[in-house]
């Protein structure tokens, strides 16, 4: 893997900035070069929030990316805004629980994940962001499966009772991603 740029987007509060941080931290721990650049504009609270995570074997050049290699979207406005920007041959992961439309990108691999439902089954409907991250990691192998589990445990270390459900949500997403890869 030379260089991967992942744009993660959703409503503010859906947790995509956290998903991005977990991914960036896991990749850093594995010895990769990383950057995590959030949108911090006035639209952030309650509006759309997005973060770009770059993961590379070489020092990261521009952390500001307008044509990412992968897009993870939690809501329809984000798909409509960013769907057309993904690089040819890239990956789009769509939260089908909240996004009723399909991507029109025939030149990209598009994964549809019922993230809210998988999160609810795992024990916390609020962890749809981790289902999405799990699905992406399961599909792409960008970092090791276990490394993100460690990040979740670390992130929730002061609220340990939330760890099992959040890990379960990530694992459910990972399995979904793995399965979709198998069927590709």
């Amino acid at each position: 893997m030379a260089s991967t740029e992942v744009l993660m987007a959703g409503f503010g509060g859906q947790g995509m900035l956290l998903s991005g941080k977990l991914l960036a931290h896991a990749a850093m721990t594995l010895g990769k070069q990383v950057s995590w650049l959030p949108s911090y504009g006035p639209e952030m609270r309650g509006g759309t929030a997005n973060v770009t995570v770059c993961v590379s074997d070489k020092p990261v050049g521009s952390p500001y990316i307008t044509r990412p290699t992968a897009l993870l979207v939690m809501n329809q406005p984000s798909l409509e805004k960013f769907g057309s920007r993904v690089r040819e041959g890239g990956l789009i992961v769509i939260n089908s629980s909240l996004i009723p439309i399909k991507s029109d990108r025939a030149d990209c691999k598009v994964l549809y994940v019922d993230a809210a439902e998988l999160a609810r089954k795992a024990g916390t409907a609020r962890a749809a962001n981790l289902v999405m991250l799990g699905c992406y990691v399961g599909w792409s192998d960008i970092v090791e499966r276990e490394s993100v589990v460690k990040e979740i445990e670390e992130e929730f270390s002061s609220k340990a009772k939330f760890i099992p459900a959040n890990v379960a949500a990530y694992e459910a997403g990972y399995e979904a991603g793995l399965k979709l890869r198998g069927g590709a």
Partner: protein
Amino acid sequence: MAKVLMKGNEAIGEAAIRAGCVHFFGYPITPQSEVPEYLAKRLPEVGGRFVQAESEVAASNMIYGAAGVGMRVLTTSSSPGISLMAEALSYIAACELPVVLVNIMRAGPGLGGILPSQGDYLQATKGTAHGDFDLIVLAPDSVQEAVRLVISAFELAEKYRNPVMVIGDGMIGQMMEPVEFPDEVKGPPLDPGDWALTGCAGREKRIINSLYLDPDFADRHNRKLKAKFERIREAEQRWEAYNCDGPCDLLVVSFGMMSRICKTAIEELKAEGFKIGLFRPITLKPYPYEALRKAADKAKRIISIEMNMGQMIEDVKLAALGTKPIDFFGMAGGLVPSPDDVVAALRDSLKKAGAGGKAR
């Protein structure tokens, strides 16, 4: 120490502590508010003092006072806040006090917006405030370099007894990158020398003041400050020259985060056979004119790329002294040029330079 993933603003706060600075006076403003937020929590843990002032005007005069009594001191702000601090900066420079300030620039002019900008280049390097004085201005291009330069800023401030500004755009404050801190923490306080106001019992009293009604004295003082900046100019210029080894089709001049976006664009065009160099001043003041001139000598053409409407280009012109044509590309108002935008600008300049690249 192991690498940690940290926001630029927080890393700047931690770097100050590692530099032995445990006094902070400031006022919140986006996009740098995480610096005071971080230090409000951290400074009490290391026996330091955090004061949220009632305004930037107050904060800047508090650092003036703290430096005057020999304390290592920091303030941080963003563009409109720095303007409010300008008056005190002139006084601090006049009194030759070592302070460090950080400007995480946002879009202007006026109250502007909270998004990234490099619109304060000329303010930082030329017209910060009234009177003849010079800041030292450092511009990092990564969170790691921000840490290095904040630590360096304290060393320079004390070495020359001069205010030092570290300048970055909103991106560098808000983004997270892996960063390593030096294990060693420098012990405060700084050496109060023969100037700090430490209590005059048993010695001659000292006065720190910038009112010079005697013109002969004031003239000598101005000459002294200028001579000091000449020493700084001789000793402290820093820059990065990237892809500048041989002749090139085009030389990009860019600083801070913008230069990293340029690097990505340069790499993309390299695949098409174009040879493009990048010159990145790290000290915006003293500006590395000679080094830039040498890099420019090997290029057919120059382009200055900035997140403003063309400010550093004035120094690029001073460096090139009319020897090469110079183009400009920039965006303002909080828009950040993307690698694609830069590639398009570079293509225009390459065309004007008559560079063909590989036959396509």
